[in-house]
């Protein structure tokens, strides 16, 4: 049996390596062509469709072709960051509420709805954002925020049409909250009562017990769910495509600015890229995919490092 497991594990690892290798091979000419500019320039231009392909650095490309995705990297990281920063505290609070504040019978029901939220296809979130959230935010919320919170950096300025960074972050947050909530709730409920009882018996309040004993006991679950949530937000495609404003070659100037993310950009550009007779546009999109994978790996590793570091420090109460 152990051998079967080992073989399966090896297979999964091999598939992962194969996929990354495939993209690396596919993207290789584009990587050579673009160099580091790919990451530092914020202009993506597939070139003149009907111009004659020209030879550049030994590769055939359309005249005027230039591939820089800084705006995509920025859009992806910022929308994900907003989503995670909003979703983790909200998700943890919801988990505390579900695990500690309501009777077990009710908990089952409310939890069911939270889990349903996770089961909704992302295109439905996107459509909801498109039809309801965007007009609402653009008309009522963003102008108010710009007027009252404008003193904060990036909160002031033009609030635009409602499509953009903050909207994407909000919808992404909504999509990943259930992930955090159900993981942390399960961890809280599954905790043996011994430590909680010990703290309460020593005269700690419910809140102190939560803060010093129960929540620290779920740190692994919290960080783990945040990692999963980050991965989901980084890769989310459909919903973001519908609400981000699909900014091209544009770096956000405030939190209301339109953006694009790498995942949604691949979808929106694929059709046009296929028209490129030199094939370079598709190779450049493969390079986008490769960068997205790399970012996911880096974020994951950082999070795992955080987990390791967390495990090593004690959760002593500040006196």
């Amino acid at each position, binding site marked *: 049996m152990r051998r079967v497991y080992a073989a399966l594990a090896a297979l999964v690892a091999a598939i992962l390596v194969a996929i990354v290798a495939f993209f690396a091979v596919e993207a290789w000419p584009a990587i050579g062509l673009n160099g580091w500019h790919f990451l530092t320039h914020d202009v993506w231009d597939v070139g003149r469709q009907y111009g004659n392909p020209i030879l550049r650095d030994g590769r055939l490309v359309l005249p005027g072709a230039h591939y820089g995705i800084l705006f995509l990297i920025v859009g992806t990281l910022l929308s994900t960051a907003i989503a995670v920063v909003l979703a983790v505290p909200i998700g943890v609070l919801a988990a505390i509420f579900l695990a500690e504040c309501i*009777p*077990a019978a009710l908990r089952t029901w409310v939890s069911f709805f939270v889990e349903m939220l996770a089961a909704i296809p992302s295109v439905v979130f996107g459509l909801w954002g498109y039809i309801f959230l965007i007009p609402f935010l653009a008309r009522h919320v963003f102008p108010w925020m710009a007027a009252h919170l404008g003193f904060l950096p990036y909160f002031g300025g033009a609030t635009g049409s409602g499509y953009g960074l903050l909207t994407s972050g909000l919808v992404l947050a909504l999509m990943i909250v259930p992930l955090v909530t159900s993981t942390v709730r399960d961890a809280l409920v599954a905790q043996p009562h*011994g*430590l909680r*009882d*010990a*703290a*309460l*018996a*020593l*005269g*700690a*309040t419910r809140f*102190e017990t939560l803060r*010093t*004993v129960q929540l*620290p*006991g779920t740190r692994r679950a919290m960080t783990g769910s945040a990692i999963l949530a980050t991965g989901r937000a980084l890769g989310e495609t459909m919903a973001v495509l519908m609400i981000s404003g699909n900014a091209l070659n544009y770096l956000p100037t405030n939190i209301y600015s339109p953006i694009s993310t790498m995942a949604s950009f691949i979808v929106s550009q694929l059709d046009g890229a296929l028209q490129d007779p030199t094939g370079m546009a598709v190779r450049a999109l493969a390079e986008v995919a490769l960068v997205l994978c790399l970012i996911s790996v880096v974020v994951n590793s950082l999070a795992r490092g955080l987990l390791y570091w967390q495990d090593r420090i*004690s*959760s*002593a*109460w500040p*006196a």
Partner: protein
Amino acid sequence: MTPGNTILNRPLAAPKPAAAPAPAPATRVVIEARNVDFFYHAHQVLFGVSLEVRQNEILALIGPSGCGKSTFLRSLNRMNDLIAGARLRGSLRIDGEDIYAPGSDVIALRRRVGMVFQRSNPFPFSIEENVTFGLRANRLARRPGERVAVVERSLRAAGLWEEGKDRLKKPALALSGGQQQRLCIARALAIEPEILLMDEPASALDPIATARIEELALELKQRYTLVIVTHNLQQAARISDRTSFFLMGRVIETAPTQQMFTHPAVQETEDYITGRFG
């Protein structure tokens, strides 16, 4: 259960015959339960429990599994409050104060009534942080030097100082099972409770670790009042001053331990301590 109640009342007068009408300080009643009924939802598990615990004595609670010993013990520091549907009726007084009176302070109660659990449950912190947890929760001994002193005093009182003094900053979970249980006792002592409740504190320990806990209980009796639940009748006989026998949610008999083990007043008690059931 009228026989239970009549017998219950007898030993109260027994230890000091013909003394002055006011009880001497040594036999001051610290805990007084009168007609305590307890329910988990509609399920009644304690029926008219009445008993008293006196200052600086060890009262052992014995009885077959499921008879309500833990439930009674946990109602003394209101740990049952956490269980949905748990309800108590009757009167439970500590130092004359009804601990279930509306508006009575649960936190203050738990500071006065410490608890040691069946399974040792040290926090996943250092030894020192375990001992100071209650101080921090209750904002006691806030000056830096004070806490150090409390740590030493508590570990000494729990017989863990010699083994623990060089590893105060080390994780408590690295201690042995018996040491962990003594750490839990030290942790409870750090906030200077008046009463210590112990629910089968040695049932998960080997005979040597058990003997240490028993010795410790006898020492602690000098300063604290102890209520100990035990399944081990020899243990009850070795350390307790008086024993209450619980059966199916009722107190059948409370008597000085020697007397109960040699001349039980009730047939059920005799059946239990001679091993005919339980």
